């Protein structure tokens, strides 16, 4: 049985080595390292692909590589297409009896390469039904190219292409709900996870890689550079994102949604507490913009209530 015990995991060989060039406090390598450790256990091997992005750039500048599992990178938009090809080849070799290994295929992408330019390729791979897991590390903007807005950037966040000043207040549009889009493909397993709930994250990775067919996992990945937050606060911010319900953690298994963690009344916090922790939202606290905080809170409440309704509905059926 695969383990999610942190002590046991810490004794396993690292599959994403140290020495890569990610910034201090980056959530990306934590997401990848934990996912690889969770997936490559017992008799399973992992093969990965990655979209262009921070994690690709910091881990795989030729001839160096931080990956101790097979890793393919080609272009920005095609992580899902690349893993589709690898998985199809594996299925063929397996049918021909030329390969016996039990291989798990994982595609990684940031939010730019997943929510935006890679969405077409991801949708195609989900629809074709390849046996793979796609993990999106969502740091809510194009950080690799210097903080430009993406479909994942939340409303009100400052980026270099969604400016805040006399006129602008950061991004004017709301965040795209990619987890729901993936779920709408009718795939067997979809989950939204948080790095501060380590065991939950590892379990969901294991559930995904051991489910036949396409699976999708969305993980919020703090970016101190882009969020203008402290590197040492990465995990605290993940917790705050969940307790403010900015980033609900839930899974949809064979169409049935269940919320993995509901903050108690004591733990639940207003979105203001989340916004205060990051420089990218600083301008929202000016008198001109303060009404937006209410709007953001309303959006969060609406989305949360939708999740609760959906969960109740799925439990009845």
């Amino acid at each position, binding site marked *: 049985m695969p383990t999610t015990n942190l002590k046991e995991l810490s004794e396993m060989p690292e599959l994403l080595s140290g020495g890569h060039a990610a910034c201090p406090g980056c959530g990306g390598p934590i997401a990848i390292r934990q996912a690889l450790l969770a997936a490559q256990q017992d008799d399973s091997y992992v093969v990965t692909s990655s979209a262009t992005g921070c994690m690709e750039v910091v881990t795989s500048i030729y001839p160096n590589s931080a990956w101790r599992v097979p890793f393919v990178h080609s*272009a*920005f938009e095609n992580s899902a297409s690349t893993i589709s090809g690898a998985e199809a080849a594996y299925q063929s070799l397996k049918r021909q009896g030329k390969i016996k290994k039990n291989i798990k295929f994982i595609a990684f992408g940031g939010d730019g390469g997943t929510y935006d*330019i890679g969405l077409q390729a991801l949708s195609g791979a989900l629809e074709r039904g390849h046996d793979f897991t796609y993990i999106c590390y969502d740091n809510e903007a*194009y950080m690799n190219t*210097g903080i*430009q*807005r993406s479909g994942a950037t939340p409303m009100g966040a400052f980026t*270099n*292409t969604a400016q805040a000043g006399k006129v602008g207040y950061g991004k004017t549009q709301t965040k795209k709900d990619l987890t729901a889009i993936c779920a709408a493909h009718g795939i067997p397993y979809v989950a939204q996870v948080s790095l501060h709930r380590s065991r939950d994250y590892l379990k969901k990775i294991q559930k995904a890689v051991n489910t036949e067919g396409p699976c999708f996992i969305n993980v919020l990945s703090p970016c101190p550079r882009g969020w203008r937050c402290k590197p040492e606060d990465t995990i605290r911010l993940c917790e705050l994102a969940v307790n403010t319900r900015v980033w609900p953690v839930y899974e949809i298994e064979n169409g049935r949604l269940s919320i993995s963690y509901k903050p108690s009344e004591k733990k639940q916090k207003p979105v203001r507490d989340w916004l205060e922790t990051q420089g990218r939202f600083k301008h929202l606290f000016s008198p001109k913009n303060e009404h937006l905080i209410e709007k953001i809170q309303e959006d969060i409440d609406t989305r949360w209530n939708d999740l609760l309704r959906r969960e109740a509905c799925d439990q009845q059926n």
Partner: protein
Amino acid sequence: MTENKGKILFSGNEAAAEAAIRAGCKFYAGYPITPQNELIAYMADQLPLRDGVFVQAESELAAINMVFGAAASGVRTMTSSSSPGISLKQEGISYIAGSELPAVIINVQRGGPGLGGIGSAQGDYFQSTRSGGHGDYRCMVLAPATAQEMADMTFLAFDLADMYRMPVIVLSDAVTGQMMEGICFDDMEEPKKWSKPWALTGATGRERNIVHSFHLDQEELENFNKKLQAKYEAIKQKECRFETAGGDAPEYVMVAFGSCARTLKQIVTDPPEELKGKLGLFRPITLWPFPGEALAQYAASAKGVLTVEMNAGQMVEDVRLTVNGKIPVHLMPHPGGGIPVEARIRKKLTSLFCDDPPKQ
């Protein structure tokens, strides 16, 4: 900023963005890619304040096709990217050319092929000057060598695009795009106004306009292509631009474009002592149309030509076609990113053109 009459310290990317706004660009669609991010950030900051629309698209394909739509409506429009992103835009550029619409495309080149690198390169010469997408079309191509020229040529590109109803590419590179220099925008106050009777502005009170690049009838498509080619011939006659350095009738001619030409200009002011005979530089400013006749005249009495390019040798083909075997044409390729250093070019010059080259 609009009131400032002096020089402003800007990167080439920002200079191009500012010039575009001054040229009356009302719609810009972009997508992040290094080394042109300063341009998209500047547009995001400034364009909405100055009566324009900025969109960060979800991909390069989306961005170029948004520009296609904006161009059809008759507004001045632009997109920018760097080499891999420009490759993704090629389908849209072909459609814009096929629909005879004006648009400006800035390519801040980086090394290739594939993902390549993010260093400066000139590997997109073929892609830009032939036709990067499908079909018999051309784009006018301007090659700036300084941050100031990125501004000047972007401003000019809008006029050329409107005049000839075609996509115009400003072919820059990482060095020119990211280097900061003092920029003067004094001559960019009044953009020319072009009448655009073909634009889709709402057909109330007039015959409807149709913008398309679709001709199922073979004869119709052939005639359309002939019309395009006639336009391109006229451009070849009228729009060749170039500059020379080192005086007339040089014995040895160096040919280079863009940032690479800047290094060579330096050498021409202080040629290697061992070189017996005058050294000149010919710098094409329009890469398409290529100023071939001008080069042939300039090099008429030359004994040898050296082409220096930040690629494996692309423009050299046009140089060879131009001199047509009359003069030996040598190539100093520099693929893979980065500018060739002056000392290496000097060494190459003496080894090629001195009977008794100095031992290094």
